[in-house]
């Protein structure tokens, strides 16, 4: 049984140096994050990510509840993270994620799904961390959290 308020953690999406964990991936702006912690209870689904070597985790929107119905661009869509996985091992990676979410009932409540960082702020080498042997990273610019609606 999962922890009541289990949190999932992601970091990377194109950055491997903790110095670059500034919240803005190499992509565009506030929607392309470098790290995210999100409650496991907000997971909506895990699906293939558009290739035989990616999976996509959808979550309830972090920043938005309801868009301006008079503005075409204010649709509230789910946020997502795309993980790169070993080719052909989508089901195995998905299974490992769910087993981790539901396992370790006496663990801390903090579950690292994927952390690409291999150099910390002090400049030391650290090991990347993945919850599954089949997860190889977070696809570049694919910790996607929709920016807040503003009525325009």
């Amino acid at each position, binding site marked *: 049984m999962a922890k009541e*308020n289990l949190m999932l*953690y992601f970091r990377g999406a194109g950055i491997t140096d*903790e110095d670059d964990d500034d919240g803005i991936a190499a992509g565009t702006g506030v929607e392309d994050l470098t*790290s995210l912690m999100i409650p496991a209870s907000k997971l909506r689904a895990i699906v293939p990510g558009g290739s035989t070597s990616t999976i996509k985790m959808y979550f309830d929107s*972090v920043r938005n509840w309801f868009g301006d*119905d008079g503005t075409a661009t204010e649709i509230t869509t789910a946020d997502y993270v795309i993980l790169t996985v070993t080719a052909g091992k989508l089901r195995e990676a998905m299974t490992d994620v769910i087993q981790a979410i539901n396992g370790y009932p006496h663990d801390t409540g903090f579950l690292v799904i994927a952390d690409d960082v291999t150099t910390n*702020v002090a400049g030391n080498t650290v090991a990347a961390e993945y919850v599954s042997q089949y997860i190889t990273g977070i696809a570049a610019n694919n910790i996607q959290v929709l920016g807040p609606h503003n009525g325009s």
Partner: protein
Amino acid sequence: MIGKYFYFRTEEDADDDSAITGHSAMFPVNKLRGVIPTNTGSAGTSADEVTLYFEPVATEESNGGGDYIIMDSVLLNVTVGQAKNVCKALAEAANGHPHSDGVITVADDQTIIIGGAAGSATAEVLHSGITSCGAITLAPAIT
């Protein structure tokens, strides 16, 4: 345990801890939508802020007409290089201490009690990587 709550206060002086939006707030942990580390002031430097987003307090739905609803948020100022550890501390607090009273003080900047002098209270943080409580932003109710 029915539910755990995160407590935040950015107001240093208890005499001024009065605004509905902005001075202090207690949010249910199960209304947390996500936590985002950022460094908005210096790209290329690790996060010095962590923003927690919660389901909106004041409004549940809109009747249209240009209204929109975004999440409420609390910004925590953190030491560079500590964002992940702060996230971990939040997760552990949210899941630990099953026999506690349910209140988790994440950041309380109060250093002055009601009618008191500077230094009459001590600020409190959940983790040493949190340096202070930043903006508490509650969207006003749609009218």
